[in-house]
């Protein structure tokens, strides 16, 4: 039921070091590729494996690579999106902390495939120890001849730079990330042109999530068939599911695509004692909320999409009945308002208005009739944000608003007539029911 591949060595002694990684067979895929495979062979393997982007959008990775025009004289670049910041998402950070070499080996294989001689890992700045581990891993990889000029006598050269960001959720959006990596404000670009044609320095560029790139060594080592033997019909392979919130065992669970939330909860002992599931996100705060109705839905790209949400980053944030959905949604909305880069008016102004409307609803000093109007206004505001900006930040901001009104309209109304929030925030804390807290 669980299939540890990426997480397999996380409990190894000093797993972050080159010695430990190589002892477990690490860099074997790189040696094999350089000795036996042409770059196009690697692209074909990744295409055949069915690997889809693990950063949220789920675009087929091999297809993305094949969009890189190989007949242009411009240099090509690989940029790893290690700016993990989507609320609820917490898989890339532990991966890079425990096994940075898995990512580095993936970077080398992927760069070889797209014929890039320069690659970057753009890691968010707020994770100091992860930055340290990446810096050391890259230094070790150079010293071992896995990076640099003429890697293992192959004539293939690759330079890899670890680049720390400086605090901006929007830089996880691939074109904003590229602007940021060029030393600018991180603001999204209008597409087309797509990064594959005009990305970093207006050159052909692949931007991939950490987990996508880290999956490549296993595909090269074990084959496309091995990878696609896991998962569902259109969602192939293994992924990391991140369970957080009101559950007995929050943490990282690596499983084939298609496992259900009920199965994951059962593995971890279920919800915290005496409480029941109320709502959850399948893939971070930008993916519409789901409820107990969706416990048996396969967590793959298709099924979650069919349920009106998105698989996203498999950031399963679990909330029990002590949680006020209005409070949760308002807090996420404040986040989007803060993180909107300000470039596009519908997102910049719209997220501000969403916060105003939600704040009034949460405060509850409206009559029921006014409250009903306010809910309609909220949905109207969402309609003026969704799909109207350069990037998906604004779209994500509307997800929890519209889905919470769909499933919990009555809970919004229960705040009205001066009542305010009917929930006790102390009841939802990690220490609720334990008398250590004064």
């Amino acid at each position, binding site marked *: 039921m669980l*299939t540890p591949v990426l997480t397999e060595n996380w409990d190894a002694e000093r797993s972050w070091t080159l010695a430990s990684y190589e002892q477990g067979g690490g860099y074997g895929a790189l040696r094999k590729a350089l000795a036996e495979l042409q770059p196009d062979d690697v692209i074909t393997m990744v295409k055949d494996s069915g690997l889809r982007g693990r950063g949220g959008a789920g675009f087929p990775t091999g297809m993305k690579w094949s969009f890189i025009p190989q007949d242009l004289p411009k240099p090509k670049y690989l940029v790893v999106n290690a700016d993990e910041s989507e609320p609820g998402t917490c898989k890339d950070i532990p991966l890079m902390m425990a096994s940075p070499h898995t990512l580095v080996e993936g970077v080398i294989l992927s760069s070889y495939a797209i014929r890039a001689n320069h690659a970057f890992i753009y890691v968010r700045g707020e994770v100091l120890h992860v930055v340290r581990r990446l810096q050391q891993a890259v230094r070790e990889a150079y010293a071992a001849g896995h990076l640099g000029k003429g890697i293992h006598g192959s004539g293939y050269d690759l330079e890899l730079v670890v680049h720390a960001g400086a605090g901006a959720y929007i830089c996880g959006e691939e074109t904003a990330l590229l602007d940021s990596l060029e030393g600018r404000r991180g603001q999204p670009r209008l597409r087309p042109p797509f990064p594959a044609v005009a990305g970093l320095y207006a050159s052909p560029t692949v931007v991939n999530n950490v987990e996508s790139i880290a999956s490549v060594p296993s595909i090269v080592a074990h084959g496309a068939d091995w990878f696609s*033997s896991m998962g569902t019909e259109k969602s192939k392979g293994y992924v990391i599911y991140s369970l957080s919130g009101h559950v007995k065992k929050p943490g990282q669970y690596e499983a084939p695509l298609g496992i259900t939330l009920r199965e994951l909860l059962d593995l971890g002992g279920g919800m915290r004692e005496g409480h029941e599931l109320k709502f959850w996100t399948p893939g971070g705060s930008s993916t519409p909320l789901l409820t107990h109705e969706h416990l048996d839905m396969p967590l793959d790209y298709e099924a979650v999409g069919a349920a009106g949400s998105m698989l996203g980053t498999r950031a399963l944030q679990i909330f029990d009945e002590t949680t006020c959905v209005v409070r949760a949604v308002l*807090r996420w909305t404040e986040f989007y308002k803060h993180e909107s880069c300000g470039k596009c008016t519908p997102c910049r102004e719209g997220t501000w208005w969403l916060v105003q409307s939600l704040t009034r609803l949460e405060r509850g000093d409206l009559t029921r009739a006014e409250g009903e109007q306010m809910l309609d206004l909220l949905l109207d505001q969402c309609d003026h944000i969704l799909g109207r900006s350069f990037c998906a930040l604004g779209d994500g901001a509307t997800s929890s608003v519209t889905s919470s009104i769909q499933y919990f309209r009555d809970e919004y109304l229960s705040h009205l007539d001066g009542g305010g929030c009917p929930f006790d925030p102390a009841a939802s*804390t990690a220490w609720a029911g334990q008398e250590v807290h004064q």
Partner: protein
Amino acid sequence: MTETTASLDAKTIDELKQIAARYPQARSGLLPMLHLVQSAQGRITPEGIDACAEVLGLSAAEVSGVATFYTMYKRRPVGDFHVGVCTNTLCAVMGGDQIFERVKQHLGVGNDETAERRDGDAATVSVEHIECNAACDYAPVMMVNWEFMDNQTPESAVQLVDDLRAGTPVSSTRGPKLCSWREAERVLAGFEDGLADEGPAAGPASLVGLEIAREKNWSAPATGEAEGQRSE
């Protein structure tokens, strides 16, 4: 926290140039260069902006426009230890809101402020509420100088800031003994500090799935040789 700022020395200017030289186009170095300015001067100073502009051939306004976009760049000094409390939804619900209120009250400060240094304090502490820091399986989460402090309570948070002010050594729950904010900024600028081997590979929550798989003897399908044979 000192109000007087030493001017950038020749070594720092040289390091700013080294950062720019890491990239195919020098301007790509601007974010790490600004981290280095913070390490050298404790904040983003007008002098630091001018120095980056000079190295990169940009105007001060262009550099300033970048520096003001990112929340990690501070125009006012922070404490020796900059404490972040996650108040994004998941952590807030799990108790981050209570922790943030308690810490502010204990230190007598508002958001993004530095507590006054009292007689006998070994170090200063500033506090700010932060957004999701990618550690939701350890909620409620705090950060100190961008090191993880997992699974906090109001009590542990108060103890933490008291220890920091008193100069009692504190270690990250998933990392080394805490360094100063300025030392941390130097690492973010790309200069290693030799602490990568400190701390565990992974915290307990990162390993729960792996431990269950080990207990139940579950694994990914076998592959035979590493030469890419088909699995059965």
